[in-house]
């Protein structure tokens, strides 16, 4: 819903043709999904588990600085792998086609304080369906920030750079609160609803288990290294939180990403839905390792177009999707991680203040004057 609609040059037929071309890309991947893909996710899971066990083993001796450094680094990476390339993608149903009950969206649980079941609802159903629709997609600022000019300013937003920083450090708790819709549900009238209480209890149980593992049992098992292991697990969680927060901020907040009005999605066709995903997401460019560590959310545009395709295929899909962007003269928003993170943070700072008053002269009038 920006002043100038970057898709205005497309006719309805073109949008539907675009939809058919995207459907064809999707079909191609589905038809070729097979043993190699299955081997990929099993290998990633196996590496993650071995890395986590080894790192936790090394941390039993975390009193020795080299052990602390190696163990903490390993555990941080293991936690990032668990949340990003493994958890997020399995919970999207990307691997459900394997029919393996151990690697399935309905049975998977992740190293995160928000239970998989609740996250799936708020993320898969709400965010992915209503991507960037103001008032419908709570991912636009997570309900605590203003990340689009069209969101109403409130004095609370003055503090949003600080809120965003705190949210980054404790991101998994932020997500749990967000999935519980705490802002809405803590109201007196809603607080005692049995449905909300049951969900809050589930989050409580998950937090207790996670905290017990990372901050009690693992340090206790470390004996004399109790305190250093405690510091290590805290650091690993912090690293994971800041990393995933940064990656996710790059998905929809950088400059150039479009937002949409509620009424614009009424009676939306498949082609229009695709177009909204294309204009509402941004990628991160980088090496294979970078794509892997972001759980392939660096291919955010492709992920939003095809949220249930296996993540290891987004790289090849991206080549074809990018060609469609060029064909239809649309802007493919992408950039290296530091640039995109800066862009997203810049927006958080900029929009903490109310919108500047519109200029007296609109750009269109300027042009007329020049022409005259």
């Amino acid at each position: 819903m920006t002043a100038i609609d970057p898709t205005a040059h497309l006719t309805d037929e073109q949008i539907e043709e675009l939809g058919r071309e995207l459907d064809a890309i999707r079909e191609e991947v589905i038809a070729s999904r097979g043993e190699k893909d299955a081997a990929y996710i099993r290998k990633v899971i196996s590496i993650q588990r071995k890395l986590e066990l080894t790192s936790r083993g090394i941390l039993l001796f975390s009193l020795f600085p080299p052990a602390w450094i190696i163990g903490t680094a390993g555990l941080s990476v293991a936690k990032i792998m668990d949340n990003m390339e493994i958890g997020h993608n399995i919970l999207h149903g990307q691997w459900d086609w394997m029919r393996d009950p151990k690697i399935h969206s309905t049975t998977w649980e992740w190293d995160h304080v928000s239970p998989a079941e609740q996250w799936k609802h708020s993320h898969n159903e709400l965010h992915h369906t209503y991507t960037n629709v103001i008032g419908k997609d709570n991912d636009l600022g997570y309900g605590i920030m203003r990340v689009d000019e069209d969101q109403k300013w409130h004095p609370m937003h003055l503090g949003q750079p600080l809120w965003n920083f705190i949210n980054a450090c404790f991101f998994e708790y932020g997500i749990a609160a967000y999935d519980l819709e705490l802002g809405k549900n803590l109201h007196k009238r809603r607080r005692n609803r049995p449905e909300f209480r049951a969900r809050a209890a589930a989050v409580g149980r998950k937090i207790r288990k996670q905290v017990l593992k990372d901050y009690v049992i693992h340090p206790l098992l470390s004996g004399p290294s109790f305190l250093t292991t405690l510091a290590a697990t805290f650091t690993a969680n912090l690293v994971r939180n800041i990393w995933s927060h940064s990656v996710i901020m790059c998905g929809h907040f950088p400059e150039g990403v479009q937002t949409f009005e509620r009424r614009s999605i009424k009676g939306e066709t498949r082609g229009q839905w695709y177009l909204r995903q294309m204009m509402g997401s941004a990628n991160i460019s980088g090496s294979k390792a970078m794509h892997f560590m972001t759980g392939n959310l660096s291919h955010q545009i492709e992920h939003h177009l095809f949220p249930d395709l296996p993540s290891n295929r987004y790289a090849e899909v991206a080549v074809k999707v990018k060609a469609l962007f060029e064909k239809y003269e649309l802007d493919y928003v992408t950039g290296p991680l530091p640039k995109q993170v800066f862009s997203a943070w810049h927006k958080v700072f900029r929009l903490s203040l109310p919108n500047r008053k519109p200029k007296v002269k609109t750009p269109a009038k300027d042009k007329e004057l020049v022409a005259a």
Partner: protein
Amino acid sequence: MTSVALRSRAWKLLELVTTPLLPSDYLDLVSPLRAGADLRGRIEAVHRETDDAATIVIKPGKGWRGHVAGQYIRIGVDVDGVRMWRAYSVTSPTNRADGRITITVKAIPDGKVSNHLVRKTKPGTVIQLDQATGEFVLPATKPAKVLYLTAGSGITPAMGMLRDARLADVVMVHSAPRKEDVIFRNDLHDLVADEALKLVELHTDTDGMLDVAELEKLVPDWAERETWACGPAGLLDAAEAHWAEHGVAEKLHTERFRPTVVVAGEGGEVTFGKTGKTVEADGATPLLNVGEEAGVLMPSGCRMGICYGCVTPLKSGAVRDLRTGDITEAEDSPTAHVLIQTCVSAAAGPCELER
């Protein structure tokens, strides 16, 4: 404290360390066949039997409880990355010294699993197993006179029985298209040479199909024999009619490999197992809508096939993916149900959902 209680406490502590995973998720990486794991097996060898049949040697996991000769097992194999379950008769004797079991698989045209097992499986592959089951077995007190009436791959359960116990008087009438199509032909003739078996081998390409009514010419005392029959539906239907006609139906035991052929139609009767509701559905309405209109509590999400908020186990029958027209059929297993997205799937013939 007993050692069992102690062990369960230690296990609980381990679970606190491995949460949200279970200790077994880690142990499975290194020891998938250990005691306490889900039942699995490792394929150790694949022996070619005929052009399109092979015997698969499986080392079962520690949890394997053994089988009775004639029973079958369900196996879950990953074909092109997709876990598929099928049932096969055990063809090894119950007392095999090395503890291995074998199944013998005939590749059927367009059979995804059978072709994969016969032609592509490599030793070392880990597969999922279910415990042996089935009533098509030799009784504990062995009958004096036995007849095996088999055709094609229907010989497999009979071979399991033949190999398991040496009985006094055994006749087998076995049909296969040609000599080279007879599975276990060498083993059978070895048994004949040992006088453990009288064999009537019919090659239907040249001899024509067996007419069960004419069985008396091949086995004059057929009606006195405890008979196990396994093969195509035509043979079994004819045998059941023949035995019943002569008033000896109780002597005939049959086993069918493929009970019902799923025909993908234009919609069908949908049963919701848990709520016990049954409704007629056309082939175009998503099962999610069908369930909701019937008042069944259906999970739902985006209603366009992307969020997987609606996945539901398909217990039997077939459904059509409304986006692609692809048919998904229920698995032949009571435990491993295919999960379908109800928001983009319509009934393709009668089907049952677990809701």
